[in-house]
């Protein structure tokens, strides 16, 4: 049983919401299997990611949660041996459809990586990068969006006087928030986060978690984390992956307090993983 000190708002909200309004599903995976060559890394996983909610994917190392995440914005396309079966939908559109432009897709689904990877350019140029590659030329507009994105990522105050400074000269936590600002600049619909705080200290982690809580008002978030407490704090829905299978999926509060599968219970109580 996960000890509850104070029930975070997201969980209460989620439970209430489940009983109330109809849910908008932003992304859906239907019987998705991912193969690396002959190895089946994800085995027929189906799940729904509700709009403006945080869906967390948890599980021990190597269980496939990052692979699943990368399938959502087709980053797995970069791996030649990777094959996918099943369908994934964004607002009802099959993202693996041959007519779907991968570049467009990645504009709509942003990704934050485990190790922050700002470009070796200035803070301003990092955040403006997405805008520039998508064709924006108006300098005034770019500057406006850069400021707005940095504010939304809760890092504006720290960098506003240093926009010309190289992004790599900032701390790890700041770099990660900068990457979030960079992703926000192009106004994605969904933000995928692959263990965004695992390389950060507790204070930076707390800042990122606060940020996620703010961001879900505007964006749909899917987060992979190996930190169960983080999943419990931050997410509305949680999916537990084990060896490529989606063992259990449900409202976070329920999954952590009344897990239906014994394997889930063993994992969250720390008996393995």
């Amino acid at each position: 049983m996960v000890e509850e000190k104070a029930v975070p708002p997201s969980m209460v909200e989620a439970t209430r919401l489940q009983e109330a309004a109809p849910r908008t599903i932003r992304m859906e995976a239907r019987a998705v299997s991912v193969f690396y060559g002959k190895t089946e890394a994800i085995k027929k996983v189906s799940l729904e990611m509700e709009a403006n909610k945080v869906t967390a994917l948890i599980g021990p190392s190597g269980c496939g949660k990052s692979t699943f995440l990368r399938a959502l914005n087709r980053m797995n396309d970069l791996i030649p041996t990777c094959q996918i079966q099943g369908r994934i939908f964004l607002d009802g559109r099959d993202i693996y459809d041959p007519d779907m432009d991968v570049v467009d897709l990645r504009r709509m689904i942003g990704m934050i990586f485990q190790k922050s990877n700002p470009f070796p350019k200035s803070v301003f140029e990092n955040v403006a990068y997405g805008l520039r590659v998508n064709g924006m030329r108006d300098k005034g507009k770019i500057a406006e969006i850069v400021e707005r994105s940095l504010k939304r990522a809760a890092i504006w105050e720290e960098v506003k006087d240093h926009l010309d400074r190289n992004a790599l000269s900032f701390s790890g936590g700041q770099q990660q928030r900068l990457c979030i600002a960079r992703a926000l600049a192009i106004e994605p619909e969904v933000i995928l986060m692959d263990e965004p705080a695992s390389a950060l200290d507790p204070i930076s982690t707390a800042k990122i978690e606060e940020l996620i809580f703010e961001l879900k008002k505007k964006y749909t978030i899917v987060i992979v984390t190996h930190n169960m407490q983080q999943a419990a704090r931050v997410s509305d829905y949680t999916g537990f992956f084990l060896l490529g299978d989606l063992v259990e999926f449900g409202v976070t509060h329920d999954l952590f307090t009344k897990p239906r599968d014994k394997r889930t219970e063993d994992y969250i109580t720390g008996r393995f993983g």
Partner: protein
Amino acid sequence: MAKRRFSLPILVTAIMTAVIVGIVFAILGNIFWFGHAHLSWEFLSTAPREGMTAGGIFPAIFGTVALVLLMTVAVVPIGVVTAIYLSEYARETSPLTRAVRLAVSNLAGVPSIVFGLFGLGFFIQFMGAGIDRTFHLEFTFNQPCLLWAAMTLAVLNLPVVIVTTEEALKQVPEDYRHASLALGASKWQTIWRVILPQALPGILTGAILAVSRGAGEVAPIMFTGAAYYLPYLPHALSDQFMELGYHVYVMATQSPDVEATKPILYGTVFVLLAVTFLLNLSAIALRSVLRRRFAGT
């Protein structure tokens, strides 16, 4: 403090280093000793007189610099584009990729004189004749000239540029590619905006190596454009030119009065080395400026 024990590997390394450094100093010293007396502003800025026994070598300096710059303009774009293809686009298992890699490594092993003959046969007699015919020119490109000598040197240095550029591209962390693609950039945008700028210092290294080799090679330019004595400076791509390395070769082997030309010979070699070092140094300076700009703080 620990007592320094006698170490054989360190001793051997030290001796080898001393030998190598010694050889370099011996060569440079020899050249400087016999050549420095002849160095003067007149030597560097005027043309040769009296059958190469008096005057200066300015035309040769001019020709060498022009040749090397032209070669660089030709070899760097082609080499970089090839390296980008091999590193970012080509599938390693495809027959085309393997053929290209095989060609590049074989090219690296071809002796310089063979490049000279290739330049003569392909550039001058085939392409040159073709150009003259097409544009109704009278014997303009169908002869040894600056353009073909530069192209021949470019072909000679292509493997160097390709290999160092590919290395530089591979050094750029995958993280940046992932970040860029995840923001909705195309592969080409990623290469142009993130990877190439990051790899620029490494690419310049390749260019530096090419410049060094280009300034020093004589065999490829012997039949393709270099001349021993010209009363004028080259002012078009179709002109012949004087060149420092070639000048040294001819003076050392075919001079009618060996003793009189000896100081000029050494002076010329000294200038050749100085020009090479200067070209290298400017490229190295440019590279370190770029490195600092991309390194962070």
